[in-house]
Every structure is written in structure tokens, then in C-alpha cells.
């Protein structure tokens, strides 16, 4: 599949955008191209189809939330975008998942390069058992930055972006595992930002955090909105409606509804979505 076909014509794109975004949120420049696009995309664990023939377009620089009951395939879908599922030997896919028009599961796709562009923050904060500085500098070093001054610049910029610079600037050489859970999670965000990705995948980034730390991460997502394409998996409906522009609702591997967050939460088209967001099942 080539790039033109995947991103569709300009008018089709505009249509997608109009569906997904409420007018008051439609103010991001450059936020009108399809960044990630799934076409009849299925993910299997062996014989088991965990994500079923999903088709969806995800717009550049907006925040997309993924909700759905436990085990419905949210993480599986999210992890397929940066090919973290490669770690599971039984996992394979059919259909197409395109990133900038390139098939992520194409034969010639370099998954290492892809992951550089598609960063991920995990449910449980997972800083390396290294100093804060080394944690943030890990990615840049990997990609060839070795100059101490330049690294310092990147570290400072990333920590500031992740809104944790003030809390750690005087102890960059201390082990990151000595920080609180909320701080660790923001370190992980900063670590991902230091690689300068285009996409940020967040898999329940606040489920291990207290409300205060959660609020900080949510603020952070608002900060980053407009600079990165962000996808966030969450079980917290309020969180989804607070931080996202569009929302995808999954149920048993099927993408039931994908619409602008405002619409999905106020006026869901599918009765199943309504049941879920009103808490009739979970």
C-alpha cells in the first residue's frame, strides 16, 4: 500500500477531522493529517484474535483515548503501533497498520527506527536502575549523541517538558528508583520525549499513581497536545473526557465506536458505548 492511498484524499481527511473533533478543540495547526491508520487490522495471539479487523484513522498532534472493559484488546492495539508485541512470539497480525503511510508490519520496516518515532510510556513506571541523568540520556546516547553539553541540554529540555525539572534538577546523578511513583512516571515520559518521537503511546499511565500525581500527568498531556500525536489507554472515563480529543471504544477486540470525545461521551451512537460509559457494565 502506498502513502497516497492510506492518507486518503484531502477531502476525506477533512471529513475524518470533522467527525472526530469538536469545534472548540480544532485549533491545532498541522493537526489535519492522518498519522496512524488501521485498515482491517487484526492481532492474534496464536489462534486467538485479540483485536478484530479494526479500521481507524488517528490524526496527527491530537490526543486519542482508548477505552473499553478489561481484556478487550486496548493494550494489544496500542502496543502493536510500536511493535512491542514482537516480544510475544505467538503474536501476529493481518490487515494493515500504517504509520505516515508506511506499513508498520511491512517486510522492510525497521522496528528500531519505528520505535524511535513512536515512544511509549507504560502502566507501571519503569525507569532504569540508573541515575536520573542516565535515564533521560539513554535514548539520545543510543542515537549517537555523546557530547556531554548537548546531552545536558536534551536532559534539561526533556525534564522541563515533562514538568519534573524543578523537582529533580539538583539530584540528576541520583538513582531514578529513589523517586516517588508519580515522579518516576514523569521521568519515564521525559525519557521518551528525549528521543524526540512523533507519537506518544501511554498505556494506563496513571493507574499506579495517586490523584495528585495523576493530575500532573494529565496536565502534562495537555502541555504536549499539539506537539505530539498522543494515544492514551485509560479505564478512567473522566480522564478520557478531560484529556482527549477523540475516543475509541473497544469491546472484545472490536472497535465499536470512534468519535470525538465530546460526542462519544454526550451522544454515543452505539448502545453498547452508552452502556459502558454510563457504567452499566465494565
Amino acid at each position, binding site marked *: 500500500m502506498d502513502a497516497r492511498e492510506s492518507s486518503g484524499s484531502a477531502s476525506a481527511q477533512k471529513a475524518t477531522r470533522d467527525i472526530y473533533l469538536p469545534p472548540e478543540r480544532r485549533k491545532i495547526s498541522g493537526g489535519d493529517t492522518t498519522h496512524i491508520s488501521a485498515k482491517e487490522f487484526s492481532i492474534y495471539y496464536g489462534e486467538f484474535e485479540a483485536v478484530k479487523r479494526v479500521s481507524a484513522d488517528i490524526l496527527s498532534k491530537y490526543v486519542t483515548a482508548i477505552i473499553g472493559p478489561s481484556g478487550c484488546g486496548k493494550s494489544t492495539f496500542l502496543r502493536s503501533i510500536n511493535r512491542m508485541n514482537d516480544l510475544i512470539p505467538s503474536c501476529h497480525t493481518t490487515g494493515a497498520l500504517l504509520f505516515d503511510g508506511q506499513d508498520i508490519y511491512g517486510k522492510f520496516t525497521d522496528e528500531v527506527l519505528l*520505535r*524511535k518515532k513512536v515512544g511509549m510510556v507504560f502502566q507501571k513506571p519503569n525507569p*532504569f536502575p540508573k541515575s536520573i541523568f542516565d535515564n533521560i540520556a539513554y535514548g539520545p546516547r543510543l542515537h549517537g549523541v555523546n557530547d556531554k553539553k548537548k546531552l545536558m541540554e536534551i536532559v534539561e529540555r526533556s525534564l522541563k517538558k515533562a514538568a519534573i525539572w524543578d523537582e529533580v534538577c539538583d539530584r540528576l546523578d541520583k*538513582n531514578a*528508583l529513589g523517586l516517588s511513583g508519580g515522579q518516576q512516571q514523569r521521568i519515564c515520559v521525559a525519557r*521518551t520525549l528525549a528521543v524526540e518521537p512523533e507519537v506518544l503511546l501511554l498505556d494506563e499511565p496513571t493507574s499506579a499513581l495517586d490523584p495528585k500525581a495523576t493530575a500532573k500527568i494529565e496536565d502534562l498531556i495537555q502541555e504536549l497536545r499539539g506537539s505530539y500525536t498522543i494515544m492514551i489507554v485509560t479505564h478512567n472515563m473522566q480522564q478520557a473526557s478531560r484529556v482527549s480529543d477523540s475516543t475509541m471504544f473497544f469491546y472484545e477486540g472490536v472497535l465499536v465506536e470512534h468519535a470525538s470525545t465530546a460526542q462519544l461521551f454526550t451522544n454515543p451512537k452505539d448502545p453498547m458505548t452508552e452502556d459502558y460509559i454510563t457504567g452499566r457494565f465494565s
Partner: protein
Amino acid sequence: MNIGTRKILDRSFTAVGIGSIIVMAIALMIVVLPIITNGIGAVFFTGTVEHRKMLFSEFKRGDSEGLSSEVASSERYRSKVYDMLTGFETELETMAPEKKVEYKAKYAQVRAALQALLGPLPGDSAPMLTRFKYGQTRWEKSEEKLHDLLYESKWDNSNPDVMSKEYFVSRAIGFQGTSLVKLFPYVKDNLEKMLLPEFTVYWGFITDSSVDSHFFGGIWPEIQGTFFLAVGAMLFAFPLGVVAAVYFTEYARPGFLNSMLRSANSTLAGVPSIVFGMFGLAFFINTLKVSESKSVIAGALTLAIMILPTIIRAAEEAILAVPKTYREASLSLGSTKWNTIATVILPAALPGILTGGVISLGRAAGETAPIIFTAAVSVGSAIGLADVFSSPTPALSWNIYNLASEHEAASQIRHVQYGMVLALVSIVLMLNLSAIVLRARISKKLKG
């Protein structure tokens, strides 16, 4: 379960736990205390003038003036002994033939006992073996030798129903009526003046080579040999083992071949060490011909093969214990698999890998069987680093066995054997201690 029963259960578990620890500690004490007390005797002991003579002529150590004045003062007392001997020899000539034969045999025994105490007597030809060039160098041994001089050992087997018993007869009685009878009380009273015992600290035990197969001197060649063998084995086995563990945990596809390899590895870990010794001889020396005959390199390779399974297993477990989240984090940042292993997995697994390594190092240092046919000799000098490819070496483990069982005068040099045991135990202990410290430091760095 009610609270009373629960408490009793808890208490009894505590009691049993403490009890078993105490039993173990006592057992350890029983093993270790004699090693320490006897082993220390190899360095700290009461040495005689003979020891100082030996040091001076064999190792060129000590001050010659002090020594000659000491020798002069001891000779003053010894010359009386020599005079008594010549006196008796003249007396012997004048005796009736049967008496002469009887006394001659007894006299030879006295002379031998005196030689053991004081070294060569006037009129003796120069001895070939160094051990006969000197009298007793250690005071506690001279007291034993004095007993040999004063008493003749006899065996009482008059009663066939019980084991024969040793008993002692004073030699002086046998010489009643001759001039030699004065010799026994004289030696007894003046032994100290003839041997000049003095508290001695002989650090050379650690740094000297041995003289006359461990009769005198130290155990440096053994210490060095042990070090070469153990470190050599590590140099081969550690990198190989870690690489193999990385392969097993990160690259190998699960399947028949993989499970075969793993069970082969586990089996190898349980093979008796003597089998490795035979294998080393057959493979490294006879087939690969890494050296003409026994050599340090052949021994180190054999030990390496022996400890490899342990290292692989420890490294595998350490790698598997690294949280999956580290791997995910690294890969999600655009790291390659190899880079993730090198910069995240291995550093995080390092404490566990090191622990396995040091346990193996201790084992390599202590094993005897694998080096019997491949590297060890009973006596030898310290070899240079360049000789490891061609020369065999003495080593502590082998020489402890050798001194305990095969040495022709094992009972004479127990202190050397104990000294070696202590040295080996200390080396292994030091290795383990440094590993614990290293491990603690790395873990602390990892934990923050």
C-alpha cells in the same frame, strides 16, 4: 487456629531455626578452629637456632654476626655432647666383642636421635638431602625428638587378645655403667641452650619457595599456582558462560535442541570432578595438544569446563530475574536487542552473574581432581607468566592432598599442610568476601 497454638507454632519454629544454626556454627568451629590454630603455627612458632641457620644458608636471610655468635654459644653446649660421643666410641673399642655388638646397635639409635635433634654430628659425612643438614628447626618438634632420644619405644604384645600397646623404656638404663649414661640428663637439661628457642614470625612461609619438598621454606609456588589456575579458568569460563547464558535466555528458540542443550548443561554441573580431570587429559593434552604434558593452561581449561555449567546457570537465572519492564523500556526507546542486552539487561543482572562467578572461582581454586592429570606437580618453583603454556605448577589443593597422603615424611611437616589449608581457606574466603562487597555495592547503585 487459635492464637495460643499459633504463638506456640511460631516460637517452636524460631527455636528449631536457632537450634540448627547453633549446631551448624559448632560444626563449623570444630572444622575451622584446628585449621586456624595449626595453620597459624606455620608462620608463628618457636624457632630454634637451626631454623635461623637454615634461613641464612638456604635463603640468605638473617644477620650473619648475630647468627655466628648464636651458633658459637650453642656449640659450647653441644661440644660436651660430641665429647661424650667420642668418649663412648673409644670405650666401645675396649669392650668384649658380644657387648660391643649389643652396644653398637643401641648407640646407632642414640646417634640417629641426636642427629634429628642437633643436625649432623662430627664425623658424619655431608648429608645429601637438605632436611638432614639441620637439626630441629621447631621447638615443639625438638621436644618430641628429645623424647625419642631419652626413651626407646617398645611394643607389648604379650596378651594376644588385646591390641599390642606401645610403652617406653629409658635408654639411659641400657647404657648403665658406661660413660654415655651421663649424656641423657645432659641433653635434657641443656637442650634449650643447644637449640636457643625463640619466638619466630616467618612470613616467608607465604612468600618463599619450598626447600627439599616442603621440609623447609614456604608455599608461594602453591599459592601462585592456585591463583593462576583459578584466574585462568575464570578468564575462559566467565565470558563464555555469560555469552552462553545470553544465548539461552535471549536468542535460543524454544524447541528440542534448546531443551537438550539445557539438560546437558544441568547434567554437566553434576558430573564428578575427577571425570573432568580425565577429560582434560584426554581432550586438552592428548587430542588438542595445548601443551606437551601437564601445564597451567591445560589445568585452567579443564577447570573452566568444570565450572562453566555453574556460571551459565547462575547467569541465566540472573538474566531471567531482570524485570521485563526494563527490556520493554529500552526497546521502546529505539534500542536494538543487542544494545538492550548490553546496556540494560547485563548491568541489572551483574550482581547475580558475579555471585555465580565467584562461587565458581572458589570452586576452581579448591578442586583437586581436575588438575591431578592436567596441571599439578607436588614440588616445583613458582613459574613465570610466560611459562603457563608449557609448565605444570604446584597448587594448594593438590599439595594438601599430597602432603597428607603421599609425602614420605608427612608426619614431620604437618604444620606446612595446615598452613596450606589455612591459605586455601583464606583465599576462598577472601574471594567470597570481596564478591559480597562488590555485589552489595552494585546492588546499592542499582537500587539508588
